[in-house]
């Protein structure tokens, strides 16, 4: 029988989350999603499918979009992680959060953290995306509520705000 409280087999892993250095003691193959949610209380990343299809668990790891349900904790050692909790500057929403709110990009909200991080990743790579870029850039994140159109509007709006003409 395994005692869930015992530490045998666990290891210390350090990384930076939303600008803060953190160290956790976890099993090396524990999912990054569970480490974020259970060890660090960062519950913004959601589990939708547990197999990398829906993108609700998306976070940025060293500037790349990853499905945190597919990343073993060990792989995040020394990484720089950004979760949805790290985007707003205090009460000030970032451009994407504000645009999602204003354009109707969030309905039930369960895909929203992942969708916003995927949008963030897209705008970091393509600051002035075409509609096709947006469609392609978000195609790894499923949304069942919106039919995506208002999400596209939000991303385009955020891009405009980031790069005022």
């Amino acid at each position, binding site marked *: *029988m395994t005692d869930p409280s015992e530490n045998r087999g666990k290891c210390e892993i350090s990384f930076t989350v939303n600008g803060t250095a953190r160290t956790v003691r976890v099993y090396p193959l524990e999912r990054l999603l569970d480490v974020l949610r259970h060890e660090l209380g960062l519950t913004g990343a959601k589990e939708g*499918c547990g197999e990398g299809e829906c993108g609700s668990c998306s976070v940025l790891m060293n500037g790349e979009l990853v499905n945190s349900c597919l990343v073993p904790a060990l792989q995040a050692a020394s990484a720089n992680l950004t979760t949805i909790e790290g985007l707003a500057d205090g009460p000030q929403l970032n451009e994407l959060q504000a645009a999602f709110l204003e354009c109707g990009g969030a309905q039930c909200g369960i895909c929203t953290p992942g969708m916003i991080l995927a949008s963030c990743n897209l705008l970091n790579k393509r600051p002035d995306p075409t509609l096709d870029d947006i469609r392609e850039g978000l195609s790894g994140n499923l949304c069942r509520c919106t039919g995506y159109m208002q999400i596209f509007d939000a991303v385009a709006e955020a891009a405009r705000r980031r790069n005022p003409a």
Partner: protein
Amino acid sequence: MLAAPECTGPSLRSARHRVKGFRMTGTHIIGKSVPRKEGRDKVTGAARYIDDMTLPGMLYGATVRCQIPRGIIKNVSFGPQFNWNEFVIVAAKDIPGKNCIALIGDDQPCLADGRVNHPEEPILLLAHADPHLLRKAVDAVSIEYEPLPAIFTIGESEDGKQIIWGTDNIFKTFLIEKGDVDSVWARADYIVEGEYSTGAQEQLYIENNGVIAAFNVEQGITVWGSLQCPYYVHKALMALCGLVEHKVRVVQMETGGAFGGKEDYPSMIAGHAALLAMKSGRPVKIIYDRIEDMTATTKRHPSRTRHRTAVSKDGKILGGEIDFTIDGGAYATLSSVVLSRGTIHAGGPYHWPNVRIRAQAVATNAPPHGAFRGFGAPQSLFAMERHMDRIAQVVGLSPVEIRRRNFLKPGQTTTTEQTIREEIDLGRLLDRALELSGYTAKKTRFAQENKTGPIKKGMGIAAFLHGAGFTGSGERYLSSIVAVEACANGTVRVLVSSTEFGQGTNTVLCQIAAEALNLPYEDVQIAQPDTNQVPNSGPTVASRTAMVVGSLVRSAAIGIKQTLIAGGALGSSYSPDEFRAACRRHIAEHGQLRSIARYRPPEGVFWDDQKYRGEAYAAFAWAVYVAEVAVDLSTYSVKVEDFVALQEVGRVLHPLLAKGQIVGGVAQGIGFALYEKVVWQNGRMQNGQMTNYIMPTSADLPRIRVFFEEMGNVHGAYGAKGIGELPMDGPAPAIVNAVEDALGTRFDSVPLLPEDIFDAVIEESEAVSAEKR
């Protein structure tokens, strides 16, 4: 507590009122896209869903499910690799109350007791502090069965060789008769027949079903969960746990999508967690993983519809027979009401002088099918709108003209003999949809272009209606109550059991209260649905929230104002500051200021539950959708290239939310038509994963163009009708009609996958070459 005198809602259905002349002006918040109430929490990750919550000492719960479609449980054994004393184990014998999920009927057990009737039936519950260990423990339970013969299709259920439910496998039947259909065949110029079918569809909300239950003797059971209908769960827990009303509390957490999939199923998972919590004395969390959610919980009912229609040579429907059958799965659950809505919508937005509609819901050995946006209407309307194209071909008219000649007009009656009193002009709606989509020019151009090349394009139309609110006398039975209260800080709070799961309940109900009180939107809040705190405003289903509950919120809000004015605390015109000050004074003096509104059935409205005749719905929304498709004959895939969704939904209370509802519904409808296929084997879904059950991604959808007509509506708050389900009805028939237009090949089932098109096209070309030989 000092409550304002109970103010009853305005008559929600007045037979005498006409919409003409409805005033649409003079509102300050209605019609404006104010920010979603809980939106900020959703974009920052602060919103709390059930899996984000933990309680001290909490255990995790899991379900041991059946493995066969039908049989008798002979033995249950527990593998030697675990110390089972560490686990909380619950079986049917541990249920303190009645072993059923109380809903409409009580036929569905909470845990199988001796017999199993579908391959996902819950048999045992386990709980443990370690969720990883728990999963392995579920696999270590072995169950031996004596299998019984099982049935899996509507046909097998109808032939009655195996009776698996009741005496005839039939959950419910309806018969609608209008006029004298038997007299029409002799004078028909054409008799057009067709059979149409639709498949199961998974709701596929991104947040799986989940709950936490906690129990203690003094307070009873509390359940927090992802759910649509707190009082449904409340009722089910009372029966299951054998507890009185005040010993059951149900709290809705932020809910990550529902679409009907969290209408009845939460009563099951809540019941399971409650049983484990009662036995262990510790809080228990059950969160399904994706496979369990997809395979074990409800889906859209598969359907089969047969039409036989008598038509005159000028294309007028003289009368017809419609047989509508849905597959309900192993237990009755919501099938009777899904069937009801499907039956009433089966005639579409057309005038049937004579009609006979026979409908039945039948049993099979699959997990029960349940509510999914549209609730039977997408099934029967798919058949109706495919059949209209068939009739057009037989008569030699265009799909446009056949519809135009048969549209319901004001003063005419529906199949249930409900008189259309709205000034709806479906011909005009059709014209506008054709114009917006460029239908005529494109259809001509495609006919030319399709002669060469592998890409064949087509245009398809669907015209339809969707009734808002509960069917027939449903709202009278619900007798919903809402409350609005003033708070000590001078703001106002709306108290309803109506839930937010993305569609905008919080926002729209606050808007309505703010409008009624002439307050800023920010001054109105809405309480978290908690059965200890909020009255029963009914379930959040049937596109009833904005129209029915909204109307009651308006009445209750007005009650607050009237109390303050009558007491002299407020003048008849006031500023928000004066209102806040008056509330503060009133509460300081009297302790509380709360106003309650209860649904009052309108007078003079006729509905006969026996004959299924009369005013089926307080209001209908009307729509014409146009799909443009391209079929690639090298891959046999269909791409929707443009989609126009035009609808009349009464007053649009919040344009951004309304548009979001339509686009989202159309996207689900496109999935229903072209992508989403549940693969069944022996009653079990084989593709219960997002990798092999395919819903549309951002790369798959066309531009979905949404347009509203606003006629207003005397029934709902500020002229609103229902909107949430409507957009699910039109896409599948519009798309399949467009595919037929592109290829000239008939398709009468959805989902329509590339392999289906391949088979049909090959079959057709073989038939043609055989003829040539």
